[in-house]
């Protein structure tokens, strides 16, 4: 199917090219084989401008959203009102250069914006002005959700978030990326001693990290791929490995060890938990803010020639540009090395300054650049912790409480699994009953919400218990949790001394051991105990009710503060259906969990990390400062929003090893100093933009044919002068006139041939705020 009504206008540019504008009414659809109704518009004398909306002169400004301003002459039946009704994506707008030529080029692709249509309220013929947007700005009115509108739950690749957000613009465009920060360090040559069954001793280096998947080649009998699970350094650096060939003893020299994560694009290798985009339990930030969190202080995004371009200004230097391609769904396609984005601008070139209105300005050099990564903790621990999300299951009988009759409904529970869980590692069987969110309504408003478990089973030797299991929570050793929950039954016949244990908290440690949280000891802290993976599920926490206690049919709370976790791993919460013979159901409510990370020797004492590059001490007097906040990084705790992971062997690993492959022609990092945290590379990328005096040129450029100047190009100004020689520039603003072939531009210097510096003083510190 395709639009069946198309408004079109065409004109010739000053340089002799044909431009055609097509506005398609998407509410009228016809078969692909049918011919649409074409309505011809008379373009005005100044028919089309394409301009960047956000003209910030910060080269790292994330959004370079564009709009197209199209003007045509009104006539009876064709005016601004012809395009004023309907949803935001009713009228698609496409401008094409040389549409009937051998290589038509898309000048702009977007949608008309109703609020920006205008014309003089006078008799025809008047100039009607239509504005089309690439909808990047309208992402502020969308949520970070999947294509079907569902929540992202868990960890996804960065490109999956990026593609999902960009599709909310209504445009399904390919994605091009110029950003070659890579995970790991590429490859290294090392001597190695292989110890059966799973140790490799290598020359000590910061090349290695837990969770990396390596390819060994050049050994006599141990070539293959391995997963590194530990990188301890004692006498030498020992790599504990798994999921690889059986190691046989060998001493080898000059073997090549390649990091397979480095072979992927950053956006295809890095996973981030969807809680990065949390705006409260069950809610996500808008798409505009979502992209800001991913791109801030690293890359910019714009639309050029019908493609999304995500580009890192830090890579615009004298070397080639490396462009990776993804389709609209975020599937990696290819990578190319290109000089096609290089542009010469100056007298006698295809593009030259015109109208003698070029101004030269300067931005003063800075004293330091710092990027602050704040530790933000998710409110929703674990997923659906407030039991607000689930699909309608059934209507329940009305309930009367204290004389008030409530309508009751039952819902499924997102994120939680109800089954016969045993200890982690043992098989799980389906539950024998149901777990539901029960809501009571009065006059259509929710008055009460809780979890109800039913389907009691008599435990056998296998220790089967119906329990509601949470999503995993990644934890670090020594972290703590505090939580509270309330529970009740319809009936519980306690025997003397009998204790009900409706709650279980278990740790699946990275080292393969399993731990459970037990009742608090003398100091009031819940203690962790090693459990047998083959035994029954440990029932270890409860309100300690007995027949002499409070009424079990009323809500009773349990509050626990745990001791520090004994291992790193994944934590699971189980709401257990614990019962007596006449119990029909068990209810839970008000689950509250607080997670306390242990960082730098203290619990929750630090607010974030500051990556800072300063001018050397022998260069005083520079007072300008660049201070920005970033939202992704390498925190010490996996639960912190924006923590970056790789996935190896189906498991998520925190990763803090990155290198700027662009500097080395996409080859490996040549020295250990080139491998560092993501924040390090962000900080130096920002620093290298502000450490020198920056030249800024603003003026009019003439020359717009099929390879017109645009935001993504890299410019050299060929009018020889001390302010242009050896310098490279990018555009931060443009206003293209597609009749006169003139464009108003602002060019900012991003590179000068004395190169970039990666050795200025760099600090990484915790911040307390």
């Amino acid at each position, binding site marked *: 199917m395709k639009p069946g009504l198309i408004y079109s206008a065409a004109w010739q540019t*000053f340089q002799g090219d044909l431009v055609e504008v097509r506005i398609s009414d998407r509410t009228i659809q016809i078969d692909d084989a049918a011919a649409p109704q074409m309505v011809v518009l008379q373009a005005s004398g100044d028919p089309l401008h394409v301009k960047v909306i956000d003209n910030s002169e910060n080269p790292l400004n994330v959004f370079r959203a564009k709009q197209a301003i199209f003007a045509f002459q009104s006539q009876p039946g064709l005016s601004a009102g012809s395009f004023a009704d309907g949803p935001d994506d009713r009228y698609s707008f496409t401008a094409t250069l040389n549409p009937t030529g051998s290589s038509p080029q898309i000048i702009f692709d977007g949608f008309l914006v109703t609020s920006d249509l205008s014309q003089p309220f006078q008799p025809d013929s008047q100039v009607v002005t239509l504005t089309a947007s690439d909808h990047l700005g309208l992402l502020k009115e969308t949520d970070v959700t999947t294509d079907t509108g569902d929540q992202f739950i868990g960890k996804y690749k960065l490109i999956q978030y990026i593609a999902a957000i960009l599709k909310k613009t209504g445009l399904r465009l390919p994605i091009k990326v110029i950003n070659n920060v890579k995970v790991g360090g590429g490859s290294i040559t090392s001597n190695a001693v292989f110890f059966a069954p799973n140790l490799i001793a290598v020359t000590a280096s910061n090349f290695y990290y837990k969770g990396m998947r390596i390819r060994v080649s050049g050994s006599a009998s141990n070539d293959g791929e391995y997963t590194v699970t530990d990188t301890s350094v004692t006498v030498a650096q020992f790599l504990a490995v798994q999921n690889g060939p059986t190691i046989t003893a060998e001493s080898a020299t000059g073997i090549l060890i390649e990091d397979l994560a480095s072979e992927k694009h950053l956006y295809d290798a890095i996973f981030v938990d969807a809680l990065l985009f949390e705006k409260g339990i069950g809610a996500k930030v808008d798409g505009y803010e979502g992209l800001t969190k991913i791109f801030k202080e690293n890359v910019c995004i714009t639309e050029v020639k019908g493609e999304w371009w995500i580009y890192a200004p830090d890579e615009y230097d004298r070397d080639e540009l490396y462009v990776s391609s993804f389709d609209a769904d975020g599937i990696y396609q290819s990578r190319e090395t290109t000089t096609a984005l290089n542009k010469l601008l*100056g*007298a006698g070139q295809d593009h*030259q*300054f*015109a*109208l*003698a209105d070029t101004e030269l300005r300067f931005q003063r050099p800075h004293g330091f650049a710092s990027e602050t990564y704040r530790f933000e903790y998710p409110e929703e621990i674990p997923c659906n912790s407030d039991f607000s999300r689930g699909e309608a299951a059934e209507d329940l009988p009305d309930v009367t409480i204290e004389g008030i009759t409530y309508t009751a409904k039952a819902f499924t529970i997102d994120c939680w699994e109800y089954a016969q869980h045993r200890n982690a590692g043992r098989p799980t069987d389906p539950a024998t009953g149901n777990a539901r969110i029960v809501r009571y309504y009065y006059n259509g408003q929710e008055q009460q919400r809780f979890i109800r478990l039913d389907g009691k089973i008599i435990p056998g030797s296998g220790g089967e218990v119906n329990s509601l299991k949470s999503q995993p929570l990644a934890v670090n050793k020594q972290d703590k949790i505090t939580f509270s929950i309330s529970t009740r039954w319809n009936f519980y016949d306690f025997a003397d001394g009998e204790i009900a244990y409706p709650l279980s908290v278990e740790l699946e440690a990275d080292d393969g051991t399993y731990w459970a949280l037990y009742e608090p000891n003398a100091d009031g802290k819940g203690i962790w105990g090693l459990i047998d993976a083959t035994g029954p599920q440990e029932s270890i926490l409860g309100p300690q009710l007995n027949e002499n206690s409070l009424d079990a049919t009323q809500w009773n709370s349990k509050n626990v503060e745990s001791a520090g976790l004994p291992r790193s791993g994944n934590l699971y919460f189980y709401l257990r259906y614990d019962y007596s013979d006449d119990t029909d159901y068990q209810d839970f409510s008000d689950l509250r969990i607080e997670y306390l990370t242990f960082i730098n020797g203290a619990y929750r004492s630090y607010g974030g990390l500051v990556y800072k590059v300063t001018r050397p001490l022998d260069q005083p007097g520079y007072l300008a400062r660049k201070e920005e906040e970033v939202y992704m990084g390498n925190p010490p705790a996996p639960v912190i929003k924006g923590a970056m992971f790789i996935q190896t062997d189906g498991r998520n690993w925190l990763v803090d090893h990155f290198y700027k492959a662009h500097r080395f022609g996409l080859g490996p990092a040549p020295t250990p100093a080139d491998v560092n945290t993501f924040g390090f590379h962000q900080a130096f990328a920002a620093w290298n933009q502000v450490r020198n005096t920056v030249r800024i040129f603003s003026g009019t450029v*003439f020359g717009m044919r099929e390879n017109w100047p645009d935001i993504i190009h890299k410019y050299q100004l060929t*009018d*020889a*002068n001390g302010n*242009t020689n050896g310098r490279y520039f990018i555009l931060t603003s443009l206003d293209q006139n597609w009749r*006169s072939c*003139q464009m108003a531009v602002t060019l900012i210097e991003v590179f000068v041939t004395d190169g970039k510096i990666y050795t200025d003083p760099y600090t990484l510190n915790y911040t307390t705020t």
Partner: protein
Amino acid sequence: MNKVQAKNITISLQVGLTYYPIICAKTGALSTDQEEIEITSINSGTDREYMPGMASHTLQVEGLTELTNVSNRISVFYLYQQSVRRSVHNLQIVLTDEEGDVLVLTCKGFVRTLTLSKQIGSFSSSGALFRITGPIGYSDVVGPPTDPLCEIADPIYALLAEGATSYTNVLLQAEGVEILGVWRSTNLAYTTGTPGNGQYSFDGPSGTIFLDPLNPINPGGEIIHVLYKVIA
């Protein structure tokens, strides 16, 4: 000589399939205004630099006022009518030079200004100014002028062998060659027919200068000097 007299310029407007002269025109003017785009750069020194920009054209006609389209001429009152005035028309300018060669310029335009004036003692005059939209077409491509030939060519010095009574050179075969002078030991005079002593004749098609057959080139040879020009 292909000069164009003013009376041989007709400015017409198409009505239906026919072009009709506009007004009883006494004067007319076709004006083209070429905009300029300044491209002065930092290295332009003391002289500004420009490139041609967009062009705009107008066509103006003035003549005697006639009430109607008599004599197959467009009256100014015909042009005043809204349906005519607010339409884009095909316009034509026909120029005929004194040799009968014709150049036709065609374009589209619409009425921009109409004037009707009265002056006691003379006929009423009216005028129309048309804004031309789009380019002006030419019936024939007006090529650039040809390079002028240098009339007086480089002189020829040639050594003739003993006994020679003629001299041939391909340069002298060109159309329009006129011999200005021929010297042996003395300047020779031109003659038609068989040259005598001190004379020469010239045959253009063969490029040959004939000397007195009774007075051939002396022993040891002689240098002949030919000065000529080529008239285009």
